């Protein structure tokens, strides 16, 4: 964890003076205690999964494991949204065109 301190502090904020850098590893019985003074942060893994952390040490633990406060998914998320919008828009105009033609024909 010490090796990643710069990365951890970039994501979780400065290490509190009284905070020890404890190695939690994969201990399933470890319980993180919520720190009311710590503003809840949202971390993302490489697949875009989300977790909320409620203390600096919890945040440090996850960042050390590869989670980050930013999810660099931008382009694909944007593109996906654009694709959906283009699909909906073009479908609507196609239906509208045929409906309009049908009405004109009936008149």
């Amino acid at each position, binding site marked *: 964890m010490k090796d990643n301190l710069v990365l951890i502090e970039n994501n979780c904020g400065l290490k509190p003076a009284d905070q020890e850098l404890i190695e939690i590893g994969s201990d399933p019985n470890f319980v993180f205690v919520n720190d009311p003074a710590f503003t809840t942060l*949202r971390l993302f893994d490489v*697949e*875009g*999964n*989300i*977790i*909320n952390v409620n203390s600096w040490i919890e945040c440090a633990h996850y960042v050390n494991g590869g989670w980050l406060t930013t*999810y660099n*998914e*931008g*382009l694909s*998320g*944007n*593109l*996906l*949204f*654009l694709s*959906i*919008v*283009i699909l*909906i*828009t073009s479908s*609507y*105009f196609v239906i*509208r065109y045929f409906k309009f033609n049908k009405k004109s024909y009936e008149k």
Partner: protein
Amino acid sequence: MKNKLTISAILILLLLIPFTFSDRNDSITPQILSDSTVGFYQTSTCSISLIEFYLQNQNANIYFNSNDYADIKCFGKITGVDKVNNSYMVSIGTNTSINLLLQSSLWFIIFLLIPKNKTEKIFSIRFSLLIPILLITQYFGENRFYSKTNIIHSNDLSISNYYLFAVFIFYFLFCVVFYDVFKDRYLNLINYLPYVFLLVGTFSGMNLNIYLIIGSLFGIQSLVINKKFKMPDFIYFIFSIFWLINTNNNEFFFDGDKLRGFSNSSYNITSQIFWIVIFYLFIRGFLFLVKESKAYFDIEKFMKNSLIVSSLLILFGILGSQSPIINFFNFYIFGQNKRGMREFSSIAGNTWRGFSSSAESIGEFFAFTLLIFVYCLVSKKINVLNPYSLLLFPVLYGLYRANNFAAISSTSLILLIFFLINTNFYKVYRFYILSGIAAFSFISVISYLYLQDYEYLSTELVYEATLHQDFYGDPNSYKSFLQVEQKMQERDLNSILYNSENFQNASTSYRFLVDIFTQNFNIPFVPNVVAVISIISMLINRTEMWGIFIAKYSPNLLEAMFGSGPMQLNGYLYKHDVRLDVPKYKLEALFLPHSSILDILIFFGFFGLFITVGSILYLIMKNYNLGIFKILTIFMLVNLLKSDSILYINSLLFFLFCIMGLYYYENSDPNE
């Protein structure tokens, strides 16, 4: 009928399908939620759909939370589970961008249920395309809001910003769909206005409401058709200049809270321009709609729709309080600002929360429905045994549970007067009855002032405001409190402000009121204006809220004269530091002024307030006949004095409808 069934089927499919998508090929299957499987759901996020999860967990104590910041791929899926006290908080991915697409589609399909007009009027689409440009400016002006609620939000002006490009295309489509749906329906819309209380229309994760967009599109139509700028337009333009001049760099940010969708979240030039233009178009559009619909307005249809909406509010409110999944879908389908009540206890159930952010606003709606029903019963001679009369029970129940004493008492009084003036007894003894009422009111006021101690009543508001100012600053807050308390016991306001630090810490409105209150000259038998306001505040139980308002409201000269702009509360909320004398748990609460008069003062200043109130009073005085719109306008005015209802888009629409109904439908001189 067949058409309505098809629309309903499409609606249900459109709503449910996005919440059923999940990868069937992965090995992840939903498990029964318990303490031991919370970890499973925390690690397998974005893999299990809401419907899959719900089918497996119908009986668990669950609260479904919407997670607007989730990625598009996580839409409709479980994005996290936490145990809070004895219940499980299950987060459902509801990406903000997809919400815009899905909720717009749902709501436009619902609008298709409105019957078409018999005739088509000229309706232009060309200029409507300016609206996407306007709506995009909000993404720049309120960047901070959207950065917090949308994972793919970016306001970079670059070719690679597909997000903004997509939003622009969608708004373009929105305008075309608006044209297709409303071009032969819009004259009927006014009869369906009560539905704005059921379909609230706020996009999840956005600071935008569908009625704001639709209203502004009608505003564009109004400009195209009428092609004239009148005096109110010029006055608004002049006000706009002052609002923009007065906008300085600041870091204020209001997340909208219960006003989301109809409140400016930032205080910068771009956000100001957006709200100034859209508010103008929205108001203009609605006035255009009311004016054009004159021949189509049917009071009985309006009454029936009000009764149906009131009953549906009660039905969905109760269902949502009993079932977490219905509670979630209520929020999503109806575009609520806040989640509905989770339990049916007396406090949680008071406000029909969710469907209305405010107990006052929903209470006014139920009372409004009751008034229209009674009016139709008496004036239109509708049969009291018609099936719609049964829907009066939910209205009365809703009014009772809204716990809005002002709405109940003002409705009772108005109904009493209405019944009285329709009797022969009144027609014969009119002079004696009016004289009797005037004498009784005068004696009541004098007795109240005498019994309650005039000095106490007339000073309480200013002293309440004093309590919330940051006077005699000291690290020991109790010491400060004692100093203020001593001055209050001595009823000594001036010497508090002699202290230069106190003077600096006092809001400008506080200084102004103290100055008026402590002036040296005294006109016999004419009470001081501050004393009058103080007495009114005591009478309607608003002393604390108005005291807080005086402590917080610290405008400069321009703001005091012209306000800070439409739906702009940032200056009021954050500009002036106060030390609120309220319990600790309330310190972070949203303190709104609790009077629509004060809201108008914040937005449009003294000039705006004078013009607005003056015009409404002039309109009321000018119409001699006691028609339904006059009754409703008086009712709304009385209630707006002590409620913030104009901050909610549905209540504002109703208020405007009453005034415009009075102007266009009941005006003795419609050519004015």
